[in-house]
């Protein structure tokens, strides 16, 4: 019998609820790693001109620390 009534009830505890909210420092580090990689690989370029092949982000300015502010323009296949 595979009815709902007889099927073994799965654990009531949600798996997702066991994950922790990341610390602010970890979030900032993840953001920096992502953005540094985009710039290093040439996938983030200054705004105002057509995006070259494989670029996905534009650099629209810099923050107070001099880090580039990136905005996604597209997703590319490769």
């Amino acid at each position: 019998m595979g009815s709902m009534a007889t099927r073994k009830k799965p654990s009531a505890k949600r798996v997702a609820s066991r994950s922790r909210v990341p610390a602010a420092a970890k979030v900032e580090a993840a953001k920096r790693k992502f953005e540094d990689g985009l710039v290093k690989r040439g996938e983030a370029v200054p705004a105002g001109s057509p995006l070259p092949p494989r670029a996905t982000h534009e650099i629209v300015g810099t923050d107070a620390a001099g880090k580039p502010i990136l905005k996604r323009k597209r997703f590319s296949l490769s």
Partner: protein
Amino acid sequence: MVTTLGIARRTQSMATRTPKGPAKAAPVSTSTVSAWIDDPESGLGRVDRPVPDLSKGTLKYRIKGAAPKPGPYAPGTPQFRYWTAAEALRRGGDFWAPILGLSSWQPGKALPVSLDKGVDLNAYYDRSELAFFHEAVKGKTYYSGESPDVICHEMGHACLDAHRPQLWDAPFIEVGAFHESFGDMSAILAAIQLPQLRAKVIASVAAFKSNELSRCAEQLGHAIRLVAPDAVDKDCLRNAYNKFKYVDPQTLPDDAPATSLCAEVHSFSRVFTGAFYEILSGMLHAKSKKPKDADFVAVAKDLAALLSDATAAAPVQPDYFAQVAAHMIDADAARFAGRYRDILTEVFVERRLVPASAVHPLQAQQRKAMAAVKAVTAVAAASRPQPQSRKIAIPAAQFGLGDKTIVVVAPVERNPFLTAAAGLSHRTDPPIEDAAQRFVKMLFAHNRVDVESGKKKMAVTPETPREHLRKTHVLTDAADGMRLSRRLFHCGCALPCGHYNGFHGYTEET
């Protein structure tokens, strides 16, 4: 660009060979179009399909430029490329729209599509359109928009963007990588909607092998490999059949050959796509050792529904892979009553996407052990260790029962097959005494011990006081002291409800 190296092309069938000379438009029928079943270099060839209407359906498209008259055109013609792209777009949109609950795109009601935006070996989605390209490499021109894999990858980006626009500008590697993975998963799930492809790969998918389905964008991968040999997988752009396991992308280099993982989103996407394909295989295999066509269709739909639920609920965080994976497990519990929990947890834990501590810690080991258990059941039955028990003496004074001893008989059973804990249990005895002490203290603290009647069984009538029914254990006289025995299981509810003497069981309130 180097164009003179004599690199051998993969053998192409007549159906996939690019014809020379001008394209000949020779439609025989206007009720069907000819289209690739899968990628042009998958080897699966063509199929006749109903003429797709991009202006109808829940998700609409608008391919820029004039539409050629429908018909079964030859590969290599612009008309063939148009209709093979239109067919893939229609098929992919019709698959995702009801699952994701979509009726429009980020750009609007109809998604614009440029089939040939210029020169590149690439394609993109930019919230204004899907764009595809062409480029000549070593004497052959490759059109990215000719591949249903590429079409349905980009369409997958647009679908996920409509479903979860918050992902668009999230500045995390795992979010960008998941978007790429979703594109590849979209290509796979949309391909499964074609019966001709299902017939070809069903056995291979159930056996968890590399095949035409797992290989995404063989032709474009081939072209890129001619220019940059280590930039893509050896047999396609990205193969969903892979062994990549999760590592924190913070620890990865920013760039690496395709043979290794790096922190670039397409590279890292293969971790999640690999898990997805292994789960697809496991779900199919779980349906039947010889799954049928209908099983394949059902499993693809179920897996897509889990992705839909999970992406709707998972918070946008740096550990987005784990978030989606955990929400898929939870979505399975909610939507399918845990039908796929075993395979989801096994794969996600094995690939380190979800920590073992977040799911049943022994699930993977149990699953693997099951085959061995079944094989040796007959032999093991003769030599199976008998259940053991241990007497634990607890001073009764702490419970106000004078200078006596409470004797608790604790069952001890070790299963050498089913639990990983069995492999560790020789190192140290489990803390049975401590557990027994805590348990007895809890019973007294909750007034669950009958210390007066001295009788294991209790007659129950409508007049029996409610507090008597809450006495789950009883002390009876024995040679070595006062024996503590269970009398009943209590359901934990406030009212007496006939859950007496264990005929309706529920756990103790521990």
